[in-house]
């Protein structure tokens, strides 16, 4: 073991009842590098990091951990944090109603015999915030009042306060927009210059190939390979090949669907923020979708895309909503979710755990939730019909589960998303709005979701796709609307659309206002 190796995990094997999550995994990280950990969902990335950070204490797994040149036995997060190993989880662990300072020093307060020295804590917070590029943020601001991007940076500041030597980031940019993601990655590169070692888990391969010095690929609980990017950067296709174990010729399935007449139209749509009612979240939006067409809505986080979709779908968001919705050429009443569903509109929510699924219910109950009428007679549910429906969708969408009675909470992200799709397909919509349909799911499952979308438009349905991943929009959409600050600022045909043209439209419109 050479001297500049900071961490080496040797032959790690971790078994859960009935499942071997990690099998003989070896993983080593050099001092001062950014090491990316890739793999499909369920490949064992998070498990490996939980072993490292002491969430699974020494003795519950096999294998050795060598850190800073010595073999270590960690029995809890407390142990690893003392050694400077800090993990930042995907779900942020900040307390919304406490201030930045309070959050940064939570559990580690600047105190003498239990009495907190607020002046000192504030001073140190300012220093830490400056390091993560939040110089102008007031340390007394409540976490709930700053955006997700800044919250992520506060998490990093918190890690810095603990004298971090090895920083582990689990999907740090999953809920960030393009600009915030870039800022975060730049920060990581900056820290690297200062000698900090970090491990980053991410599904966003373009980000990985941008920052990583080395990439370790896991598949089915084993190490597949470690790609060294110091000489030449690894291409996305190269990483995907390692992850799925085969060549993916095309990340987006081909589609050749004839596009028909207009099926869905929104005219002069306006809506205001539900609490700050003077803030306009949708500003005179006009858009349309034709039969057999996939229409994208691009935009940065906070552009108002989700808010727009939810305000259209049964006025589920916003106040003082005005405008018309036309489905199949006729004005449709979409004033409640029930009516919107009846008008053959479906909205697949962005946040499937909070808004899409009843996690403690099984697949079958989730599948029929939005269309109980389809499996019941005079309020009594027909068990046999319901099972048939659930089984049909399970087979058609290839939901991997032990059966239709498996609880949604026990499914992987991709399969959960398929259950949400099943629910909406069973309402037999003409128009589907898909909000970030592939967020946080792995490459293989993404491909399957795209295939489902293709099948839908083949049946003559219209699809609106909201996504923060531009390659996805470019790869799947026939036409792309660009949204910024509550307005549609550009409409691009497939030929005109590119990452540059989308970003240009956003930047230009932001400039207009200032």
């Amino acid at each position, binding site marked *: 073991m050479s001297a500049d190796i900071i961490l080496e995990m040797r032959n790690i094997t971790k078994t*859960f009842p*009935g*499942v071997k*999550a990690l099998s003989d995994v070896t993983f080593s990280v050099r001092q001062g590098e950014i090491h990316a950990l890739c793999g499909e969902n*369920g490949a*064992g990335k*998070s*498990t490996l990091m939980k072993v490292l950070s002491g969430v699974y204490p020494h003795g519950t797994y096999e294998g050795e951990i060598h850190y800073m040149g010595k073999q270590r036995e960690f029995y809890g997060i407390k142990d690893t944090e003392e050694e400077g190993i800090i993990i930042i989880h995907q779900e942020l662990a900040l307390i919304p109603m406490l201030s930045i300072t309070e959050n940064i020093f939570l559990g580690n307060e600047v105190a003498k015999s239990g009495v907190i020295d607020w002046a000192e804590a504030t001073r140190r917070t300012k220093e830490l915030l400056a390091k993560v590029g939040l110089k102008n943020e007031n340390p007394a601001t409540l976490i709930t009042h700053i955006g997700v991007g800044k919250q992520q940076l506060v998490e990093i500041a918190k890690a810095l306060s603990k004298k971090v030597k090895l920083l582990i980031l689990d999907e740090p940019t999953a809920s960030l927009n393009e600009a915030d993601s870039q800022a975060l990655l730049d920060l990581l590169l900056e820290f690297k210059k200062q000698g900090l070692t970090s491990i980053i888990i991410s599904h966003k391969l373009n980000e990985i190939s941008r920052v990583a010095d080395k990439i370790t690929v896991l598949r089915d609980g084993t190490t597949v390979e470690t790609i060294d990017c110091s000489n030449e950067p690894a291409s996305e296709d190269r990483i995907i090949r390692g992850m799925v174990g085969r060549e993916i010729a095309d990340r987006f399935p081909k589609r050749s669907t004839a596009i028909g007449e207009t099926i869905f139209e929104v005219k002069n749509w306006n809506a205001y923020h539900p609490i700050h009612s003077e803030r306009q979240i949708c500003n005179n939006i006009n858009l349309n979708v034709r039969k057999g067409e996939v229409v994208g809505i691009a935009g940065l986080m906070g552009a108002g895309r989700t808010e727009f979709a939810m305000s259209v*779908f*049964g006025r*589920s968001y916003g106040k003082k909503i005005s405008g018309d919705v036309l489905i199949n050429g006729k004005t449709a009443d979409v004033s*409640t*979710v*029930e009516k*919107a*569903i009846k008008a053959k509109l479906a*909205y697949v*929510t962005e946040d499937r755990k*909070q*808004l*899409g*699924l*009843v*996690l*403690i*219910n099984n697949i079958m*109950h989730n599948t029929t*939730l*939005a269309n*109980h*009428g389809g499996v*019941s007679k005079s*309020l*009594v*549910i027909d*068990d*046999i019909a319901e*099972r048939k429906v659930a089984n049909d969708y399970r087979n058609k969408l290839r939901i*991997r*589960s*032990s*059966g239709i*009675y*498996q609880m949604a909470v*026990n*499914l*992987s992200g991709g*399969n959960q998303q398929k259950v949400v799709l099943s*629910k909406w397909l069973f*309402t037999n919509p003409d128009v589907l709005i898909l909000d970030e349909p592939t967020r946080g799911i792995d490459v293989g499952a993404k491909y399957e979701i795209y295939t489902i979308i293709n099948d839908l438009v083949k049946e003559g349905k219209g699809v609106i796709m909201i996504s923060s991943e531009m390659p996805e929009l470019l790869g799947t959409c026939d036409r792309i609307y660009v949204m910024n600050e509550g307005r549609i600022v550009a409409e691009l045909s497939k030929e005109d659309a590119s990452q540059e043209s989308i970003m240009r439209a956003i930047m230009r419109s932001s400039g207009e206002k200032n």
Partner: protein
Amino acid sequence: MTATTKPDAAEQPSIGTFLKQNIREYGMLIALVVIMVFFQIITNGVLFKPVNLTNLVLQNSFVVIMALGMLLIIVAGHIDLSVGSVVGLVGAVAAVMMVNYKIDYVTTSIVCLLLGAVIGVAQGYFVAFHKIPAFIVTLAGMLVFRGMTMWVLGGMNIGPFPTEFQSMATGFIPPLGTAGPILSLSSFVLTLLMTFALVFMSWRTRTVNMAHGIEVEPQAFFLVQNIVLGVVTLYLGFELSTYKGFPNVLVIMLVLVSFYTFVTTRTTIGRRIYALGGNEKATKLSGINTERLTFYTFINMGVLAALAGMIIAARLNSSTPKAGFGNELDVIAACFIGGASTTGGVGKITGAVIGAFIMGVLNNGMSIMGLGIDYQQMVKGLVLLAAVFFDVYNRTKG
């Protein structure tokens, strides 16, 4: 990570794994049986004497009836602390109408049920449409309705009631003849029919499930379960038949239990209440009017509490300002002992009924033993804690 691909689910798991998977379901039933056997022994056989079994039913029917409504409220993610006071108020109004104003018992009963519905409307309105936490709304209701009870009664006990009204709580179904030790032929025939219906229905569910390739309990387990269920039903029904037969409240209770079991397991309304409690936002975005659903569960609770209020008044043959005091705690405890989740979305009617009887048998058994109310309270409190602990422990471990 733990999701496994298993296209063809095993037809019948072994008895051991099946019990392990369903430990919560049978755990409380087993606990009830153990408690009953324990008191049967320690009271030298008094517990299962026909007269005591009859008493057990008469004393606990109102808790069971309210637990049916409370379970729906808890599954929907709320709570109702006011039911004890509603019991008092309904009893008071019934007493004043029948005794002071000489209004007939039918009109009185209808007015009382309507009063319960109005109370449900009032409380449900704030909880469902204004999102005021049910804990606060019903805590306020608990105070308001108790105060109203005292005001209506003027601080006095009012009674007695017409015999027809009393018979609702203390009467028995007509015996229609005797045979040997059986003093109520009608009750015995009902027992036979019920036993047959229970076993037939569980057999039918099993065959239908098997025909559709759904995992069912192991055969031996199924047989034992049904034989035990059948024998217990037969025995209890027979015992009651050798005394005065089925109490009227038992019939009311059985009808309501069957009805609510059907509603929760087979209807869209039941399904939606579980979804609402499991994830309100997702349910709302699936086109379900969650506010109205919550509103209905409170109206339902109000009506059931009113029914319970009448039964209690009829049993005591007098309305007192203290009637129903503390009942809400017994009812809520019954639901949680029966496996309902404090966060909503989980709970079964059968569980709540079993929970109510665990509380009832504990009360009854300890009273026969001559234990004071002080000890009874302590034991009941610990049983509640133990049941929920067992539940949570099982879930975190599994």
